[in-house]
């Protein structure tokens, strides 16, 4: 009886995890500029991952794999925000300047991000001219 | 101790390499390398003697017997090539100190000798092993250390030629890996003898044919056979002279050994001949190599590059020997393997002495060399005569056997072409002798006195030159060994 409950819970968590995963991936594809895509990506990293690993934990039951899964969970819990932060910082430093330079007040609108203008190709063009 | 000879042969330099890294002083590392090389030479001599008396030796590593563990099989062919590689290495290293010091500066000496030992053990590993994948691993060891050694050359062209050699060498090695993969897939084993037994059963499938083609192309890339030789002249002309001396005399020889080992022992001579038109292919490519190599060599101004092209030509001869694919033909190749190693080592060592004194080895440096460096120029003249194949030198013996083999199997035109090739080599050797002896030193250069190469280089060079002459007259050792080897490989004699 308990196993069936646990396995149903695990199946549900896996399903939910996959749903979040796919929505996050969808977000990455559909969002207009880099920073919004980052949000979608961090979403898949957080809830999507935790749900799937939680589901796996339940299917694995007590034992060695459980500990290893928790280790992975803790590791991802620590590293994904840092990676996200570092990525955003380096984007900020290089070409995708954020409009947030002005005073602390939250400025509505799309901010100074010049998003859609394919800086990558411009970047390459400059490189070729060299 | 005698039972462990085969593995000692490879392990000695292999373990010596990392320990050489600990000796920081350059003179010490040179002495250490010389000692190790000498020990390896003694071991190979003992091994050759043991194999000649008792037949082939089997040594299973790690105690696991043949197809499961890795096995060392030393038969006459292995022992002979080991003997050549270790002998040449001892001579080259004996002459290395002064030349390496002047060309590489003080700081990189220890690393140079360590890399040299690695290359040396890599080559020995390829020759001694009886396991196909082990060949690939040691092939990589020797190639990687060769790329690093070439890249230590003085001018920037060394870097570019090292990179080209790396790309081509890696493609060659990966082709060999693909071939080994196919063989494993079709037979399930990696041991050479085991393969030889199990291949005839699956011989008809195209997979084995593809394996054969891939391994052949891979080895020919390493061998610098005619169409795939583009990396050799750059690599040999820009590398430090001592490296060129060592590589010219051994690296291509080991690749040739591999070719013989795969076509004869692993695939069996009859399969090799029927699968691809090997006989005509090798003879054609060999001759093309001879003529193109010699023709281009004639117009080179840098003498190292000239002798590099001449190496391409001489490899062409060996390939023709295999192309004839009779016992006499194979024996001619194995003989030329030995004689060519002697000649080229002597020539490049003499060039090392010249580069040390004159700073470069262009044709102008040779003007009036007969007076300035009589001993070095003498060595070049005699080794050049041997290269051309004048009687009473080692070169003549291998030319003689090659012609005899060609005539024996009825290819009269081939004999004439071989001789024409050696005439071409006479032309570019004559350019040197003409410049050195017959043209008076051009007046513009200040009249330098006699500044001969240091004794350290002269003694090994002249040692090799005398060996050239000795084996030109007293040929019992090479002839008997190569006779036994080719009879064993082709004739099926025990």
């Amino acid at each position, binding site marked *: 009886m308990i196993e069936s409950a646990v396995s149903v819970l695990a199946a549900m968590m896996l399903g939910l995890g996959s749903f979040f995963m796919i929505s996050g991936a969808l977000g990455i594809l559909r969002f207009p500029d880099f920073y919004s895509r980052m949000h979608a990506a961090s979403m898949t990293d957080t809830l999507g991952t935790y749900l799937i690993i939680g589901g796996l934990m339940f299917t694995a039951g007590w034992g060695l794999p459980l500990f290893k899964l928790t280790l992975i969970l803790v*590791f991802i819990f*620590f*590293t994904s925000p*840092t990676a996200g*932060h*570092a990525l955003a*910082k380096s984007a900020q430093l290089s070409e995708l300047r954020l409009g947030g330079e002005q005073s602390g007040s939250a400025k509505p609108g799309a901010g100074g991000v010049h998003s859609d203008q394919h800086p*990558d190709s411009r970047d*390459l063009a400059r*490189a*070729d001219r*060299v | 101790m005698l039972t*462990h000879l085969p*593995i000692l042969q490879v*392990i000695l330099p*292999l*373990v010596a*390499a*990392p320990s050489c*890294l*600990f000796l920081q002083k350059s003179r010490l590392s040179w002495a250490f390398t010389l000692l190790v090389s000498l020990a390896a030479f003694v071991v190979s001599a003992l091994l050759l003697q043991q194999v000649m008396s008792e037949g082939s030796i089997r*040594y*299973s*590593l*790690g*105690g*696991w017997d043949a197809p*499961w*563990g*890795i096995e060392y099989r030393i038969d006459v062919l292995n022992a002979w090539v080991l003997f050549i590689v270790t002998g040449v290495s001892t001579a080259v290293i004996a002459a290395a100190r002064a030349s390496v010091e002047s060309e590489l500066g003080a700081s*990189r000496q220890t*690393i140079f000798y*360590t*890399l040299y030992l*690695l290359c040396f*053990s890599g080559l020995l*590993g390829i020759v001694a092993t009886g396991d196909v*994948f*082990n060949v690939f*691993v*040691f092939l*990589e*060891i020797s190639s*990687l*250390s060769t*790329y*690093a050694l070439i*890249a*230590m050359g003085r001018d920037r062209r060394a870097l570019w030629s090292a990179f080209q050699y790396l790309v081509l060498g890696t493609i060659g090695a990966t082709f060999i890996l693909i071939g080994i993969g*196919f063989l*494993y*897939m079709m*037979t*399930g084993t990696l041991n050479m003898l085991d393969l030889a037994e*199990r291949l005839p059963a*699956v011989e008809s499938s*195209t*997979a084995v044919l*593809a*394996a054969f083609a891939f391994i052949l192309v891979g080895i020919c890339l390493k061998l610098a056979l005619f169409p795939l030789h583009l990396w050799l002249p750059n690599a040999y002309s820009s590398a430090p002279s001592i490296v060129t001396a060592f590589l010219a005399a051994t690296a291509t020889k080991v690749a040739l050994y591999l070719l013989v080992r795969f076509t004869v022992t692993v695939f069996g001579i009859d399969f090799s001949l029927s699968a691809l038109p090997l006989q005509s292919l090798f003879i054609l490519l060999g001759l093309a190599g001879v003529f193109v190599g010699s023709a281009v060599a004639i117009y080179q101004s840098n003498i190292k590059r000239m002798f590099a092209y001449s190496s391409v030509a001489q490899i062409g001869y060996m390939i023709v020997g295999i192309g004839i694919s009779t016992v006499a033909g194979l024996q001619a190749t194995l003989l030329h393997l030995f004689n060519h190693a002697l000649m080229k080592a002597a020539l490049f060592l003499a060039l090392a002495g010249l580069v040390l004194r004159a700073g470069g080895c262009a044709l102008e440096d040779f003007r009036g060399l007969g007076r300035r460096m009589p001993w070095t120029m003498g060595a070049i003249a005699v080794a050049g005569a041997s290269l051309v194949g004048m009687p009473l030198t080692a070169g003549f013996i291998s030319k003689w056997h090659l012609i005899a083999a060609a005539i024996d199997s009825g290819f009269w035109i081939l004999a004439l072409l071989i001789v024409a090739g050696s005439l071409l080599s006479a032309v570019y050797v004559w350019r040197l002798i003409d410049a050195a002896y017959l043209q008076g030193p051009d007046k513009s250069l200040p009249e330098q006195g006699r500044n001969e190469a240091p004794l350290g280089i002269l003694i090994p060079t002249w040692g090799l030159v005398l060996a050239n002459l000795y084996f030109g007259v007293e040929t019992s050792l090479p002839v008997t060994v190569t006779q036994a080897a080719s009879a064993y490989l082709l004739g099926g004699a025990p």
Partner: protein
Amino acid sequence: MELILDITLLSLLLVTAVYIAWTRDLFAAVMLAGIYGLLSASFFMSMGAVDVAFTEAAVGAGISPLLMLSTLAICGRAQRANPQRAILALISVTVVGLLLISATLEMPAFGSPDAPAHLHVAPRYLTDSMREIGIPNVVTSVLASYRAFDTLGEVVVIFTAGLGVLSLLGLQGETLPRQVQSPMAEPSHLVLRVVGKVLVPPIMLFALYVQFHGEYGPGGGFQAGVIFAVGFILYSLVFGLDAVERIVNRSLVQALAALGVLVYGTVGVLGIVSGRNYLDYSGLAGDSVTGQHLGIIAIELGVGITVAAVMMLVFFVFSAQLVRGRVVQHAS
């Protein structure tokens, strides 16, 4: 199920490879090379080749993109447009391809248990290795005992590569510009520094765990060495090259690299001393199984030390080039 996984992974691999060939932006190529490594590692995983997946992940997705990136940092990202000799390349490549495809037609079907490969040498490893060597991980037992000489060759290859890189880049004047702090150390990288400090010890412990559990699960000397080096690399990324140089200076790393190979070599020689052939561990201890056990642990240690040392050496030499490149920029 395995089939779908297998086919999708391979198709993804193919798409990535083609795009790498096509793109002109080198940075994108390196990024995709990283993805290519990850994909091939997961393919190995689905094929059941656990150790290989481990290694490919550590190397294909970890070390080689890092090295390529530091080369890119110095050599610039643009690639000239016109691939010369394109037609020649296409022809020769298609010829080789056709030869191969014609060869695949007669290959034993993928995964068929009665293919010759599985019938001749391999069954003995699977059946007898537990009795003869006594460790569950058959790959490690083959790697470390049956074909121990191959692994010795492997270690020496790594050692050669390390020396080659050292001889090329390592000897250009040892004076590292001390005053240049790694840009990461500025206050704005607080998050990275703190998390780095938290993560480095567990990574190194995990490396040692992998080292010593090579017999029971996936892992072994090589993978452990790479992870250990990754720990140090993370530290050098976060705290700067000279911070790392203070902890383990270059001559120590060189010595360690040589030491690993010597450990491996001497374990082999012990085989001879104990009256058996080279690299035969059964003589090392009372009965042969514990002897094998000891031998395998010892050589795995040797492999681990050398690989860690060489990976660190290579990375430090490359980032020293980067730092020197940057100093030159500032100066010019």
